[in-house]
C-alpha cells in the first residue's frame, strides 16, 4: 500500500486566494493511457483544451499520452490538435491551442510492457527537473477495463504510484467490474498499489450541474426537507430514457445490457443523492458516507424475489423520429438470439426511518419514445377535497420533477383554478429552468471532474464500498435473469417500454408518460 502526502489544502494559508473564483491547482502532469482512443479524442483532450482556454488548468501543466501506436510526440500533438478542433465545445483559439499542444509528449507501447513505464517515469522525472518542482501526477486510465489492474500494477512496480513532495492520483473509467466478484477483484488489485484516496472512479453523470444541484436543492432550501420523507412522499420515479438504439456499440452493449450500463451506476447514484441524509459537511467522505448508507438500506433481492421487483425487455422493430428502425436483434453486430436487455425497470425499497414504505421505481432503456432523464417525487394526495371536480381534470397529487436532460431544471406541479365562474381546477406547472436563470454555461462534465481530480476533491467520484454495494443489489437480478429461459419481453422501438413494466407499479401508481 502506498503512503501518500496529506491532501494539498492550502487555501487557508495563501492570503492571495481570498475572493478568487478559480483557486490555484498544484502543478500537474496528466498521463492519459489510451490517449489515441475515442474517449480521449472526443472528450478528454477537448476538456483539457477548454480548461486551458478558461485559464483553469494548473499554472504549470504537462500532458503525456500513452498508447499503442508509434506516432511520436509530433503525431500525438497533431492528433490532439485535430481532436480539439473537431470536438471542443467552443472554437479553439489558435494561440492557446498551439501553446497547449506544443509541449505534449507521447510514450508508445502496450500497457503491459515494462519499457512503457520506464519511459513514462523518465519523461515525468525530466519534466519535474526542467521545472525545478515536483509536479502532481494524474494517471487517467482511458482503456479497456481489463488493463486497469495491469496498468496499476506496472505503475506500482516502477514506483510511479508515489512521488516525493507531490500527489499521485488515478482516474478509472467505468465499468467498475461487471458483477460483484469482478468489482471486488478490481478494487483489490487497485488497492494493492494505490490508496483509496488516490483513486477517482469517474461517472460522468455526477459531473452534470443538475445532479450536483440536487444536493443544493435539498439542503439549501427549507421548503423541501420537511416534506422529504415517508410522511409526505408517496413514491419516487427515476427515468433515464434514450430514444436512440445501440448504434455501433453492439460489442460493448451486448455484454453489458441496460442494468449494468445505467442502473448499477448512474441511476443508483441519482437515487443515493435524492434519498441520502444531510452530510455533516460537503467533504468527499462525508457525502459518500451518507450516500453509501442508502445502498445499505436497500435490501438485495433474493433470486426468487427478482420477478416481483425487476422487469427486463428488448426493443423490437418500430418507428423513431418518423422512421422505421430495426429491433435490437437486427442491429449490426448483435449476436443472433441475444438475450441482452435493452430496458430495465426496478422497484426498490429504502428500508430506513425516512423512506420505509416509499417505493422507488427506476427505469431505463434504449429506443424509447423520447430522450429524458428525470426524477419525479410524487407527494401524497391531500386528505380531503372541498372542491367539485366534475367538468375539470381534477386534483392530482403534487409532483416535484428534477430534470437532468435534455432540459435542466426543477418543476413543481400544482393544482390551480381554471379562470371562469365555476370552481374547476387543473394541474399547472411552476418551473425553474437552468437555461433561464444563470448566465454561466455549464462546463462539460469531464472538465469539472478532471479539474476536481487535479484539486484532490473526490466528492463527485464513486468510492470502492459504493461500487461494491451497488453490485450487491444488482447481482441477484442479473443472476435471476440469466437463469430464466422464457422468451424475453419485447417493446416496439419508439414506445414507452414493455407492458410488463406496468406490473411493477403498485398501489395505483403509474409510470410517468415519456
Amino acid at each position, binding site marked *: 500500500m502506498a503512503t501518500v502526502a496529506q491532501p494539498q489544502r492550502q487555501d487557508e494559508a495563501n492570503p492571495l486566494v481570498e*475572493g478568487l473564483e478559480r483557486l*490555484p491547482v498544484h502543478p500537474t502532469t496528466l498521463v492519459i493511457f489510451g490517449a489515441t482512443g475515442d474517449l480521449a479524442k472526443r472528450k478528454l483532450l477537448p476538456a483539457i483544451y477548454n480548461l486551458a482556454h478558461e485559464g483553469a488548468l494548473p499554472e*504549470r501543466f504537462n500532458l503525456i499520452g500513452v498508447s499503442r501506436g508509434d506516432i511520436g510526440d509530433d503525431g500525438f500533438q497533431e492528433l490532439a490538435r485535430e481532436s480539439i478542433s473537431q470536438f471542443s465545445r467552443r472554437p479553439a*483559439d489558435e*494561440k492557446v491551442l498551439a501553446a497547449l499542444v506544443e509541449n505534449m509528449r507521447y510514450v508508445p507501447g502496450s500497457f503491459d510492457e515494462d519499457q512503457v513505464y520506464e519511459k513514462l517515469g523518465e519523461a515525468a522525472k525530466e519534466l519535474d527537473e526542467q521545472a525545478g518542482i515536483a509536479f502532481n501526477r494524474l494517471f487517467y486510465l482511458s482503456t479497456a477495463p481489463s488493463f486497469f489492474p495491469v496498468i496499476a500494477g506496472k505503475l506500482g512496480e516502477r514506483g510511479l504510484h508515489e512521488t516525493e513532495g507531490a500527489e499521485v492520483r488515478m482516474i478509472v473509467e467505468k465499468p467498475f467490474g461487471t458483477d460483484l466478484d469482478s468489482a471486488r477483484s478490481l478494487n483489490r488489485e487497485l488497492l494493492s498499489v494505490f490508496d483509496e484516496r488516490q483513486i477517482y472512479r469517474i461517472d460522468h453523470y455526477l459531473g452534470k450541474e443538475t445532479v450536483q444541484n440536487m444536493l443544493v436543492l435539498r439542503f439549501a432550501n427549507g421548503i423541501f426537507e420537511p416534506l422529504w420523507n415517508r410522511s409526505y412522499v408517496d413514491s419516487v420515479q427515476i427515468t433515464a430514457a434514450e430514444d436512440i438504439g445501440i448504434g455501433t456499440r453492439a460489442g460493448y452493449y451486448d455484454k453489458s445490457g441496460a442494468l449494468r450500463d445505467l442502473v448499477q451506476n448512474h441511476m443508483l447514484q441519482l437515487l443515493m443523492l435524492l434519498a441520502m441524509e444531510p452530510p455533516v459537511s460537503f467533504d468527499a467522505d462525508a457525502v459518500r458516507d451518507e450516500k453509501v448508507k442508502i445502498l445499505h438500506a436497500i435490501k438485495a433481492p433474493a433470486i426468487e424475489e427478482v420477478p416481483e421487483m425487476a422487469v427486463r425487455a428488448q426493443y423490437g422493430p418500430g418507428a423513431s423520429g418518423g422512421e422505421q428502425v430495426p429491433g435490437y436483434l437486427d442491429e449490426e453486430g448483435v449476436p443472433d438470439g441475444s438475450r441482452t436487455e435493452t430496458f430495465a425497470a426496478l422497484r426498490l425499497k429504502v428500508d430506513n426511518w425516512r423512506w420505509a414504505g416509499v417505493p422507488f421505481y427506476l427505469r431505463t432503456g434504449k429506443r424509447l419514445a423520447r430522450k429524458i432523464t428525470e426524477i419525479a417525487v410524487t407527494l401524497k394526495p391531500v386528505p380531503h377535497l372541498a372542491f367539485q371536480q366534475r367538468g375539470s381534470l381534477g386534483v392530482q397529487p403534487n409532483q416535484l420533477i428534477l430534470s437532468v436532460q435534455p432540459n435542466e431544471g426543477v418543476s413543481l406541479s400544482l393544482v390551480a383554478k381554471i379562470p371562469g365562474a365555476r370552481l374547476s381546477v387543473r394541474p399547472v406547472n411552476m418551473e425553474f*429552468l437552468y437555461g*433561464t436563470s444563470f*448566465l454561466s454555461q455549464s462546463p462539460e462534465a469531464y472538465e469539472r471532474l478532471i479539474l476536481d481530480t487535479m484539486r484532490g476533491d473526490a466528492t463527485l467520484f464513486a468510492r470502492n464500498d459504493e461500487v461494491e454495494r451497488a453490485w450487491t443489489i444488482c447481482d441477484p437480478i442479473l443472476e435471476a435473469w440469466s437463469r430464466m429461459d422464457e422468451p424475453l419481453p419485447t417493446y416496439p422501438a419508439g414506445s414507452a417500454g414493455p407492458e410488463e413494466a406496468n406490473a411493477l407499479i403498485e398501489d395505483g401508481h403509474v409510470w410517468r408518460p415519456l
Partner: protein
Amino acid sequence: MAPLQAPEVWSADDTSPGEIESALRTLLEEQHASSDAYVPARVLNLVAIVDRDWRGEIVNRLERVGRYHPSRTIVIAVERGRSKLSAWATMSAHGDPEPGSICVCEERVEIEVGPEHVARLATIVDPLVVQDLSTVVWAPHGHNEAVDALLDVADVNLLDSVEAPDPASAIGRAQQLLEAGYVVDLAWLRSTPWRERIAATFDPPAFRGELGTIDEVTVHHRDDSAISAMLLVGWLASRLGWEPGAVVRQNGSMLSRARGRRAEVKLRLEPEARQDVPGLAGITIGTGGGMTVSLDRGPGGLAAKRRLHDGREYSWVVLGASRGEAGILGEGIRQALLRDPTYGPALSAASAMLSSG
C-alpha cells in the same frame, strides 16, 4: 442571437412607464402563445444610461457579450431638448425552438428621455425592472447624476475605472458608489487573470514563504490604465498587510513604498507604450530571498518566468485565452451575481497611495 421567427417590436412616442410595462407583458404573452418553448430569461436587469448620439455603440457592445446577456436590458438614451418619453420594446431569442427543448428570450427596452427626466429617472426605471432580480446600472458615458438618481433601484453599479479622467477621480467615484451598494469595476476584472496567476505562482509550498518577503513590485500598464495597476498593487497590499505610502511621479512612472510586515516594498507603476488594449501588460515581483517572478502578456496566455536566488531560471506559459473587451463586459454582467470581498480593500489601499502623501 437569432431574432424570434415573428419578432414583434412595440414602439410609442409620448409614452409612460405603465404603457411600456404593459407592452412587455403583451410581448411575452404573444411569444409564449406562438410556442411554449419561448421562455423569458430571469437572471438580472441591466439599466444602461447613454448619450442618445452614441447609443448604437453601446448597443453593439451589449450584443457582443454572448451568453452573458442580461434578461431585461433597459437602455436610457439621454437626448438634449427632449421633453417627452419615446420608447420601443422587443424580445429576441437564442436560436430557434427545438422539439422538447426551451428557447430563452431576452427583453430589450429603449427609452429616449430628456435632461429634465434624469433627476427623476427612478420613477421611469423602477416600474420596468423585473422584480426580485438584481438590477445593474451602467453609465458608460458618464451621467453620474443619472446613476445617483438610481442608487435606490440599483443592486449593483457597473463601472470602468479606466474611463475616468485620472486615478484619483476613478477611486473617488468607485468608493462613493461602494458606500451605496455593490460595485463591479471592469478595470478590476481585467486584473483577475493576473491575480489568479500571482496567487498560483506563490501557492506551491516551496514558494509560499516568499510571499512574506516580497520587497519589490513593478507593474506595467497601458498608458491610460494606471488605475488597473494601482488596483493590482492595492490588492497585494490589502492581502499581504502592507501599508502603502504616497506615490511620487517620475518620468511618467509612479513610484511608492509600502511598509510590509517584514520588509519595505518598492512599488513601481510604469506605462507601456506598446500595449494596445486597456489594462495590464506585465508584473515583476522580487523577494528578499532573491527570487524574481514575472508575468507578461504573450501568445496563448501569460509568459511566466521564475528566477531563483542561485541564478536558475525557469520559463513557461500559463495558458488562457484573452477575453477581449466584449468578454470583459460580459464578465462584468456575470460578476453582478457574485460578491468579491477583495475589491473594496484593494480600492482603499490604492486610495491610500494617492492620499497618504
